[in-house]
């Protein structure tokens, strides 16, 4: 078990180092002068030189990289080129929005996708299964932002023109101020994020459960006289959980992509929106910071998924 964890940790570290090298060299070879962005278009050469010195841009490349990595490991991601604020502060300030979105989204999609898959698999070929299949196909095909815009139009704008407010047009309300308002503001973003990803889980649950229910040990379980409910949930789902957990690990990157888009559609000022603004402003330290944070998030969740996997399936240990 310890060897297994050590292996996964090493790989996670390897991913992070590769990612840091990628972003760092990407920006090092990048066209465009960061000093120009900081100092402004009309700054004289002497001032540009001063800025380069201050930012350490005149140092040799490996030295810059080492400095960047050692600082990043201590939680210091440098300063924004635009407003000189520490990148870490800028990101941390926006984390509650993104975490709220991710947390609710994951909860929504698991509680939507898995049951639909189970219902589909328990009634193969019936109208319930057909409906489930339609849901899966639509969910897989719907681009997140199209769904979000349609949701805003039908659930915010149409009711508002009719004279009442069903959902807010977007924005964020802090959880600690008013939990109800928080949930009300995030309901549409959660649902949008969940609907699109839930389809993957519904399909996976359906496929796996159908296969598992055909196994011999399920017949044995039924022969023992167990109730159908017990057979499906205790014996069937137990074997279906492992591929579901694996999928969860693979989908973290998809989830982060979805978060960026959803924040854009619903005007949520989260970390994703910060990254999009940074790209438009050519604010490289912020982009590097957000990419590294995203990588860290994926590596950590994958580690948790691996541990869960090992707990569920003793063979991998």
């Amino acid at each position: 078990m310890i060897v297994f964890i050590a292996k996964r940790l090493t790989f996670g570290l390897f991913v992070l180092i590769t990612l840091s090298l990628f972003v760092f060299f990407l920006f090092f070879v990048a066209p465009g002068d960061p000093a120009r962005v900081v100092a402004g278009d009309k700054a004289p050469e002497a001032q540009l030189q001063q800025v380069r010195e201050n930012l350490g841009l005149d140092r040799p490349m490996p030295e810059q990289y080492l400095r960047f990595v050692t600082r990043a490991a201590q939680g210091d991601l440098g300063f924004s080129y635009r407003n000189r604020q520490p990148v870490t502060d800028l990101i941390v300030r926006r984390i509650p929005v993104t975490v709220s979105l991710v947390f609710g989204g994951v909860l929504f999609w698991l509680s939507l996708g898995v049951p639909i898959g189970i219902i589909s698999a328990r009634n193969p070929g019936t109208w319930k299964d057909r409906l489930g299949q339609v849901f899966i196909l639509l969910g897989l095909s719907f681009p997140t932002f199209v769904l979000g815009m349609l949701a805003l139009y039908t659930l915010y704008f149409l009711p508002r023109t009719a004279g009442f407010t069903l959902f807010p047009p977007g924005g964020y309300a802090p959880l600690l101020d008013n939990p109800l308002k928080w949930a009300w503001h995030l309901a549409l973003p959660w649902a949008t994020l969940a609907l699109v990803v839930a389809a993957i889980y519904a399909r996976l649950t359906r496929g796996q459960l159908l296969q598992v229910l055909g196994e011999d040990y399920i017949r044995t379980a039924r022969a023992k006289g167990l109730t159908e409910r017990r057979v499906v949930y205790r014996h069937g789902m137990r074997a279906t959980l492992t591929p579901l957990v694996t999928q969860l690990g693979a989908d973290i990157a998809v989830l982060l992509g979805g978060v960026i888009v959803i924040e854009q559609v619903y005007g949520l000022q989260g970390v994703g929106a910060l990254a999009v603004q940074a790209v438009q402003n050519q604010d490289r330290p912020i982009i590097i910071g957000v990419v590294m944070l995203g990588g860290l998030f994926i590596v950590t969740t994958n580690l948790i998924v691996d541990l869960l996997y090992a707990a569920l399936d003793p063979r991998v240990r």
Partner: protein
Amino acid sequence: MGQFQSRNEEMTNEIEEDDGTEDRGPVVVQRSSAALTFRRLARDPASVIAFLFIVALFAFAIGAPLVETWTGHGVITQYRETALSPVGLPVGPNSEFLLGGDQLGRDVLVRIAYGARVSLLVGVMASLIAATIGVTVGMLAGYFGGWVDFVLGRFMDLVMSVPFLLAALALVSVFGPSLPLSVSVIVFFSWTTIGRVIRAETTSLSRREFVQASRSLGAGHGYILLRDILPNLALTIIIYTTMLIPNAIVFEATLSYLGMGIVPPTPSWGGMLAEAGANSIYLVAWWLVLFPGLALLAATLAFNILGDGLRDALDPSARGRAVFRKKKKSEEG
């Protein structure tokens, strides 16, 4: 009972197909397997409709200049007099602008037609390149195993642990948005799906007797990979490439939506939706979201249905068997 009926239908299908191959006399087995697959596919109405829709979509994209001539509206020409209301808002669908005008007074229909070009070009091209890379890497990893498999496998894991949209944003911020960059980004982050499948299949294929026979006859690695294993992967490759296309289309649209893909004023569906979303203008001009959104949804849906249909047609037993077994069980119980 529904399951039994469909099962029986499937069985009669097999018999008919056997008759068909008999009529044509001796046929190479690999060809007939593909022929069987496409025959089964042709019997699935959803797949046929999806396929016809895709053909029509290609025709629509290729014929975009014809749409331009027919409506008499240029793709980036702004019709401020006719497509904008006196207060400057876009006009809805009418006899002159069938799908309405956009916020700059351009014809939405013409722009959707040209947008289809971008979506299909990027979708198909990125999928083909991704499939080529995925198949090559997957075959090498699966066939040679050992350290080759280890290195390539870790590399695939690495690509899958990268936050792809963030990495795409980083790349765009450095190199500026462009069509080739969009395609490269999509390729880089989508070849792993097909790579994993091909790797698994190659591993099991390379242990089969016919590969051993080939090797004992003195065939080299290249010959075995290209002549013995690759043909056996053909259908898997077709299916997974088809399934890559809708994802690539959505990926491109997402990049354009975030302003990181196709550069305006070149029309793309994602870009049109982004313009509709800016200042929430779509709330007063629903056609700006509905038509490009529908085009995007219909395109991805059609490719997804076709991919599903192809998969089921390749291996009808995978679906039928599980259903059949389950049915048997519940009858026993």
